[in-house]
């Protein structure tokens, strides 16, 4: 994506969702009450994470086919940004869980899924750092990244659907899915999702450019 328009758009959308998420009207539900607002700060992170991991996967595939360093480092940075967004999503989720479930962490398929996804990507980062030869690194890391993405999809997309979960969106709990996203909340939520994806891509872009500049500086 060329130009500045998408960066501005992302910024605006995120700003809108951050501010309006606090001020806008939401419906009042038992147990949830005002904590339903976490929808704007928690769920978009996962959308953005999946989008960035997908970007990382695509760049890994490209790098595997062309042996191109630039694409490989883009894949790495995208995965890093995705990981960063996942940690935000995890912490906002934990705060929400403390107030509705009474604990920061419970043994639940969705929570396990995200924890393991993060472990897999940590393993990916470790793998990258333990390979010295850059050509070898493109192949090993790229191949592992594909594996990691497939396992992530299995974990957050397939396994939770097979079991009951405490988490909203599964089972018969007073979660978001039955009531949420009425006409008041929908625009804020969607702008948050799109905004965070754009911000994530921008962040990746910045990191890659920073790294390139640093390398150039070191060569000079």
């Amino acid at each position: 994506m060329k130009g500045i328009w998408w960066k501005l758009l992302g910024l605006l959308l995120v700003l809108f969702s951050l501010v309006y998420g606090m001020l806008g009207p939401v419906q009042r539900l038992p147990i949830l009450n005002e904590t339903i607002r976490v929808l704007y700060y928690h769920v978009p992170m996962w959308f953005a994470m999946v989008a960035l991991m997908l970007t990382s996967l695509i760049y890994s595939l490209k790098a595997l086919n062309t042996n191109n360093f630039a694409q490989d480092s883009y894949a790495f940075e995208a995965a890093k940004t995705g990981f960063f967004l996942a940690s935000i999503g995890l912490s906002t989720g934990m705060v929400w869980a403390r107030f509705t479930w009474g604990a920061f962490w419970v043994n639940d398929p969705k929570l396990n899924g995200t924890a393991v996804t993060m472990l897999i990507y940590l393993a990916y980062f470790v793998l990258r750092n333990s390979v010295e030869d850059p050509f070898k690194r493109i192949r090993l890391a790229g191949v592992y990244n594909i594996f990691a993405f497939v396992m992530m999809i299995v974990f957050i997309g397939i396994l939770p659907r097979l079991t009951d979960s405490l988490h909203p969106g599964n089972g018969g709990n007073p979660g978001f899915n039955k009531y949420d996203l009425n006409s008041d909340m929908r625009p804020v939520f969607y702008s948050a999702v799109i905004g965070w994806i754009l911000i994530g891509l921008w962040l990746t872009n910045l990191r890659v450019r920073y790294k390139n500049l640093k390398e150039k500086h070191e060569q000079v």
Partner: protein
Amino acid sequence: MIEQIYQIVKLNFRLEWQERQSYFSILIYILSSVYLSYLVFSEVISAETWNAFFWVIFIFSAVQAAYRSFHYEADQRFLLYYGMVKPENLVLGKIIYNFLYLYATGLFTALVFAFLMGNEINSLGAFLFILLLASLGFSAILTFVAGISAKASNNPALPAILSIPLLYPQLISLSRVSLRSLTGFSWEVNAPLLIVLALLSLVSLLLSFLLFPYLWRD
């Protein structure tokens, strides 16, 4: 192709048998870790703890057993293989070898468990079948990760770090379904979970098969 795969499996057994200590070290590894859990947990063994300990020990011994898969290929033999064996055949051969090896390891672990901690297995047929599915999925992922760590070299923690998170999806379903085989198993009720397990193994196999050639070329 089948002939070549068969030769690779045979070669692996021959090579490993020449250096028997790797087999024996896995046996001792299992014995000592099962004995450890026996010492720690001897009073409160229930089907749940039996199940949990069994899978934890099995997963670690499987990682130990399989990470040496490409041990012999590490130096000169790589070069020999490039010319002679297609990478697809090589990885399939290794997966089959590891599958047999892991299944034997799992059976041995179950035996030691039954001996030390009491036989909790209620429906043996189901348990053996679950173990078979587990070995299949584990061997696909572990062989692949062994290939990665053989190429990445000199980080001893790497096989465990790389493979254990990838094994979680299977392990979660496995421990759930195997607990039922300990307490009373019904094939109809558990069919969906078994199908999921089989599909997970299939996906892992397919990924290993498709991605291995990329890993392989230098």
